[in-house]
Each structure stands twice: as C-alpha cells, then as structure tokens.
C-alpha cells in the first residue's frame, strides 16, 4: 500500500479509500440495521417477484411494456378488476349498466374507493386520465385501446379537443361513457393500464416526476415506496384501498432481471419467490430437478411465420399453403419448443369464451398427407425438387427463433426440396425491414393478446392495421370485422369474427406455428395464483399481488 499512500495530492489515495470506506460502511450499516430491525419487520409478509426488464414507465397512460403492466395492476385499480381466474370483476366501479343500443355505459364508482392519500376516487379522475391518454401531447403508445370511445380517434389525430371525449362525470360517483359503436369487449379493455385513473393534483404538480415514490398517489391494493431503476421496485400494502382487508401481503418487491439465467439463479438461491420467465435451454434441467415449482400455463399468444404477399414468390396462395403444410408442428413441439407449447392451427388462441375455434383446413390431416399435398401445391406453383425455390426466413436475433428457423428450413428442404437461407437481424432493424415489405419473404412474428377477446388477434389483419406486415388485405374480411364491431348480440358477433378468421386462414397469409405458454418458477409457499384449481395462472398472465400470500 505504501506506493499509494505516498502520493502527494492524495487523488488515488482518496479514490481507493472512498471505495473501501463504502464497503466497510455498507457492511456496518447493514449489520447495524439487522440488529436494530424491529421484531415486527421480520413478521412482514413479503413477496419477491422477478419482473423481466426495467419498466419503461409507471405512468398508466404512458407505459406499454409487460413488466410495467404487472406493477401497475398492483398500484392502480380500474373500473373493473380481474379475479385470479382472469374473469372480470367489479373494481373501483361497484356496478355498471349498458344502454339498449350498447353505446352508453354508466359506471357507479364505489363510495369507499380512495386514493392512497385518503382522497376519494371520483368519476372525474377517470375522465381526466382518459382525456390524458388520447391527448396527442401525452404521447401515449396504447391510446388506440380507447379508440372505441366516442371522438377518441379524432382527438388523437388532433382534429378535436380532448374535452370532447365521450366520457363524462355525471357526478362524483357516476361515470357515463359514450362509445362510437357497440364494443362488446369494452370491459376487457378496461383491465388495461391505459384506462386506470390518475390523481390529477399529483400529475399537475409534479409533471413527469409524479410517479416517484414521494409524489406517487395510487388507488390500488399497493402503493409505491421505493423505485431504484434496474435494482428493485418496492410496493407496500395500501391501507386506504377499499378492499384492503382482503390483501394479505405487506410488501411486494419487483426485481428487474433481463437475464432469465440470472433470474433462475436468484430463484434457486432463495432471493426470488417468483420468476418472470425461465431460460428455455434449462427447461429439461428444471423438469428433472424442480418440476414441482415449474408452472406452465396456456397464454393468450401465437407464434407464427408471416408471408410477404405483396411480392413474388409468396403472392402465390398455393405456395403459401404448401409451405405452411410442410411445417411439422408436432416435431417442433417435441424437439425444439419443449415447455408444453401447443401446436397452432388457428390464429386466435382456442378457448376464448363463446368463440368456436376456427382451424386451418389441414388440422386433422396426418403429416404424411400434408407433405404430399404440400409438394403437389408446390409443383402447381411451378417448382419441384429439380427446379427448387430459394427462400429466405428472416427473424430477429434470438436463440429460440434461430432453432425454430433451422428446423423449419430443414422441413422445407426435405418435403419440398426448397433452398432455404436464414437471415437474422437485431430486433429494431428487423421490425423496420418487416414493415417495409421490400426484402422479406417469410418472417417470424408473434402476438400476445391485450384482452380476452378474439378481436385482439383479428383486428391486426384489417387492411390498415399496424401489424399487418404480410400485406393481407381483403375487403370481405374488413367488412366482417366492421360488422362485428357494431354487432351487439354476442353469439352473432362471435359468428362474424369466426367467419373473418376463416377468410384469413384460408388465405394462408401466415403459418401459425404454436400458441405460447407462460413459464414461471413459483415457490411452493406462494399461494393465491391458481386460476383453475389445476395449478395454472390465467391465460392473460395477469397475476395481481392482491390475491397472493405466503404460507410457510
């Protein structure tokens, strides 16, 4: 050490000493805190949840990522809530009525609905939040979910003033919402954070900083007490919550963990009680060693390959069908995607209430027959093993996508004799390429539903949708979707949507590959998440901490 202590200006000396002091200081602080910690603190019921990446924002109208949505479901409560099963239950609205024509919803806000500072939650809070969401100045990425509300789209486009939004506070406890057209899934939309109320005085006083722990005012089962970016977000039980008596956890701590491998290690070391994900390459090990804690549940999402229909060769419908037929989904699920994902023969995830699943026409055909049919169609399109087609599968850089692409390429090669090249691009580059429809032939894509209704999948394929990177455009499809959006009779509406999906699947614009599952590691002592009594979380993976508790 002497060579350092001899320096005259003490720069290095100071720098190194401060580090050492920090280390010693933290040690002393930690040990003194441990000694001084009150006994009651040890009896706290705390849940440690892994939560993917750092949330982009904790502002309900601004945020758009899944990790943030988990936290916001704990911090805020919309007009409606969700039971562990995922079913919609009354939230801050204790009841609601819908007009005959389905265009007007009237919500009755609970008398005991309060903000964390004790102030009552009013209908005006919802009006304020929704106007904020559709206001162009806010820059909300999910404001399109509120599009069914009258004038919402015009306001976002800057044609009307936010005050013209079809949501009015009749009085403090009565909210009236006028819709542009009957929207049978409207209540489902209200489970999304973009529709949560926000506390106007806090937003106006603190601006961008109103979501900080010191400034944050929330109306959910929990309140924000610490937010250390990339480290942890701590929520404590909100005693002002109208249903606080039913909330058992004292604290929920969310840990951002981009690396699923690191997250699993923290779980195994006992630092986490719940993981956001599990690394795919360790599923076999988990099944062999920790299967009791491995919870796999169906998820409202679909993984698919899209064909660029705007350019040769895939402007040819026969070719698209041939390539979809030649994918052996069972082998993919057995050998490549092994967590229990379901082979997909539809675009809408089967099992939605009242929706009769629509499947591609080859669902019940044995793979051998599919392959024969595929080759026949391939030949009809003008190709053969002697005159092969060269195609390119494009995906965003990711090990799983790569494995799937390699497997599918070899299937296409052996069944059709096609020459397949794989191209991977970094995610943002890939999105840009896909949107341009210039270079793409076959591309990977996926979609997770925002709410539990087929519309969340089918609206993507309208001619003007923001995820329609195949170029699929069918006036009949658009017409059916439009009719469905106006149809009040639930059964008739579902029929219209089923007809629309039939058109879409018959066009083979996409090759559905599998329906996603959610994969969590959950400690055996964490209770309250079981959606169906069979050890699954709900299909939306909306697990609200207000239902969870620890039983050791």
């Amino acid at each position, binding site marked *: 050490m*002497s*060579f350092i202590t*001899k*320096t*005259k*200006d003490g*720069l*290095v000396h100071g*720098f*190194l000493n*401060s*580090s050492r002091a920090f*280390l010693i200081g*933290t*040690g002393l602080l*930690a040990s003194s805190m441990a000694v001084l910690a009150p006994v009651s603190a040890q009896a706290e019921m705390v849940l440690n949840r892994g939560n993917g990446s*750092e949330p*982009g*924002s*904790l*502002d309900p109208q*601004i945020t758009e990522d899944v990790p943030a949505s988990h936290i916001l479901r704990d911090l805020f409560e919309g007009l409606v809530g969700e039971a562990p099963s995922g079913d919609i239950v009354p939230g801050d609205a204790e009841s609601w009525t819908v007009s005959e024509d389905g265009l007007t919803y009237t919500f009755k806000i609970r008398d005991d609905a309060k903000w964390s500072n004790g102030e009552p939650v009013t209908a005006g809070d919802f009006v304020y939040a929704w106007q904020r969401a559709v206001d*162009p*100045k*806010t*820059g909300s*990425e999910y404001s*399109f979910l509120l599009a069914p509300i009258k004038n919402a789209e015009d306001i*976002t486009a800057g044609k009307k003033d936010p005050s013209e939004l079809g949501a009015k506070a009749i009085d403090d406890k009565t909210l009236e919402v006028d819709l542009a057209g009957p929207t049978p899934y409207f209540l489902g939309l209200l489970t999304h954070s973009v529709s949560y109320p926000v506390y106007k005085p806090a937003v106006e006083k603190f601006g*961008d900083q109103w979501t*900080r722990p010191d400034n944050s005012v929330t109306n959910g089962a929990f309140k924000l007490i610490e937010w*250390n*970016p*990339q*480290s*942890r977000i701590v929520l404590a039980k909100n005693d002002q919550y109208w249903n606080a008596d039913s909330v058992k956890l004292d604290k929920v701590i969310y*840990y*951002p*963990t*981009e*690396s699923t*491998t*690191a997250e699993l*290690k*923290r779980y195994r*070391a*006992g*630092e986490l009680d719940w993981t956001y994900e599990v690394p795919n390459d360790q599923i076999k090990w988990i099944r062999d060693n920790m299967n009791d804690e491995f919870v796999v549940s169906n998820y409202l999402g679909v993984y698919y390959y899209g064909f660029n229909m705007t350019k040769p060769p895939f402007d040819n419908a026969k070719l698209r069908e041939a390539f979809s037929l030649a994918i052996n989904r069972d082998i993919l699920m057995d050998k490549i995607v092994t967590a229990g994902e379901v082979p997909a023969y539809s675009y809408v995830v089967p099992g939605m209430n009242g929706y009769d699943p629509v499947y591609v026409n080859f669902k019940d055909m044995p793979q051998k027959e599919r392959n024969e049919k595929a080759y026949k169609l391939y030949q009809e399109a003008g190709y053969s093993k002697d005159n092969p087609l060269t195609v390119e599968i494009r995906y965003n850089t990711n090990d799983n996508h790569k494995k799937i692409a390699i497997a599918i390429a070899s299937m296409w090669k052996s069944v059709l004799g096609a020459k397949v090249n794989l191209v991977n691009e970094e995610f*943002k*580059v890939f*999105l*840009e*390429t896909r*949107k341009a429809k210039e270079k793409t032939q076959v591309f990977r*894509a*996926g*979609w997770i539903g925002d709410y539990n209704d087929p519309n969340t999948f089918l609206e*993507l394929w309208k001619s003007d949708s*923001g*995820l329609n990177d195949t170029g699929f455009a069918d006036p009949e499809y658009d017409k059916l979707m439009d009719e469905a959006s106006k149809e009040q009779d639930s059964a008739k509406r579902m029929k219209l949507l089923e007809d629309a999906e039939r058109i879409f699947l018959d066009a083979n614009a996409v090759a559905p590959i599998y329906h996603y599952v959610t994969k969590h590691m959950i400690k055996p002592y964490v209770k309250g998440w079981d959606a169906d009594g069979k050890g699954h979380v709900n299909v939306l993976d909306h697990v609200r901490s207000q239902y969870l508790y620890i039983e050791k």
Partner: protein
Amino acid sequence: MLGFTLKRLLGAIPTLFIIVTLSFFLIRTAPGGPFDKERSVPPEVAANLNAVYHLDEPLWMQYGRYLGDVIQGDFGPSFQYRDFTVTELIFRGFPVSLTLGGSAIFLALIIGTTLGTLAALKQNSKLDYAVMATAMTGITIPNFVMAPLLTLVFGVYLRWLPVGGWEQGWDQVVLPIVALALPQIAYIARLTRGSMIEVLRSNFVRTARAKGIPEHIMITRHALKAGILPVVSYLGPASAAVITGSVVIEQIFSIPGIGRYFVQGALNRDYTLVMGVVIFYGSLIILFNLLVDLVYGLLDPKVRMQ
C-alpha cells in the same frame, strides 16, 4: 503540475466533441427508432411521439439542440425510461458502477501486487508456479464464464452469498467485485512479478541490501516503488477493461449501474441514454488516463522532469 493538468483537460474538449458528434450520427444511422414495437402504433400516435421528442425535426437541427443541451449539462429525456431524465439515470447508476469498478481495481491492486511480489521473491519455487498458473487461468477464463460459476458455487450450492442485487446488504457486493477483479488480479500479478524480478536484480537494491536495510523495508520502500511503475501504466487500460467488464457483470448480478443502461439503451434505440453513457464513459476514461499520468509522475522523477 497544474499547468500540465489544465492543458490535458482543455485537450479533452475536442476529443469529447468528436465522440459526441460521431456517436450522435452513428446511432441515428442504425435502422429502427425508439418507438418501433412488434405492433406499430397508429400513424397519428407515432407523429405525436416524434413531435414530443423533436424527432420530426431535421437531423442537423436535432444535433444542434442536443449539443446546446449537453453544454448546459442536460442530457435530455430517456426514450425508454420515460419517467426519468438521462442525467438522473446516470447519476443514480454512477455511484454503483464507481463502487463496483473502484473496489475491483483496488482489490486487484492489493492482491495482484502482493501475489506478484511474492512470486518474484520466490522465483521458480512452487509458490511462483502456483501464482502464475492461477494468473494464467484468471486471464484466460472470461468473466461471463467466471461470474456464473461463482454464483453457482457460492450462491446456489453453498448459499454463502447472494447471487444478485445491490444495496440490500454488504454481502451482495462480494461476488460481483471478485468476478470483476479476478482477471485484473491476474494481469497485475504477472506485471508485478516481471518488473519486481528486474528491480530486485538492480544495483540500487544490491546497495540497499549491502547497507543492511531490513528486507521488508527494502521491498516496500525501495523495490516496490520502482517495480510498481508498469502496474500504474496499466491502470489506464485496466479501468477501461473494468468499465467494459462491468457491463457484463452488472447484467449477470442484476446490479443497477451504468453498464446495464448502455446495453439496454443501444437495443432500445434510446438515443439520449446511449449518448449520455458514451459521453460519461468517455470523460471518465480521459480523466482516469490523466490521473494515471499524474501518479506516474509522482512515482518516477524522470517523467516529472519531462
């Protein structure tokens, strides 16, 4: 000394200006923008977002605006972490990265010089071979392999130390600091050994011994002061290595330092965040190299003269 320092600091300004300009335009040439997601937002919303963040202005105007803000110490809002400004994120992450990196360098210096000196004193003994073999292992195993191994052994199997997190207990810092320091310990041990062997054979050491100066004083006061010079020169590159290494380590141990923002920022096209971190790291490396030169001058009178 003061003149030299001022000259060096002034010389850093054009360097930083070039770094800012290059990285500003480089990151903008990457396809895709901060608001590109799996599903594109409706065009009106995209237009609103671009207007909110001035992305609808010509690039040169954005560059001018950015430069003006930076000069005033404002690194702008983060596109990805929309509740925070870049300045805030950097100043929250910096103490963490500094503690992590500083402690790792400090640990590497102490252990590396000690091991290197011992190996030099016991040249060609079993101890020497053991130290050098360990050092070679430390250099050849990259930290993205070593770190998970450490977490597996000490965190998962033995349960002695936490495998992730920061600020919830002193024990959380142990594994990341060790993981980050290991390769540096190895380098410094090798450097110290080599230069100490040379110094121990030099005339002034022989004279000191002939005068009867006790061995431990001779080593710490005389030999080490000369033998440490190559290590001091190495501290510049070492700090750069620690900074880049901490990007990996922070990810593996879930540490809220600046390194994580660098990776996330680049992937999310969070222009302002990436720029902020680049400028910050750039300044840090310039400053560190200056410090190293100053320390070198203090230790070596010949350099001071020059």
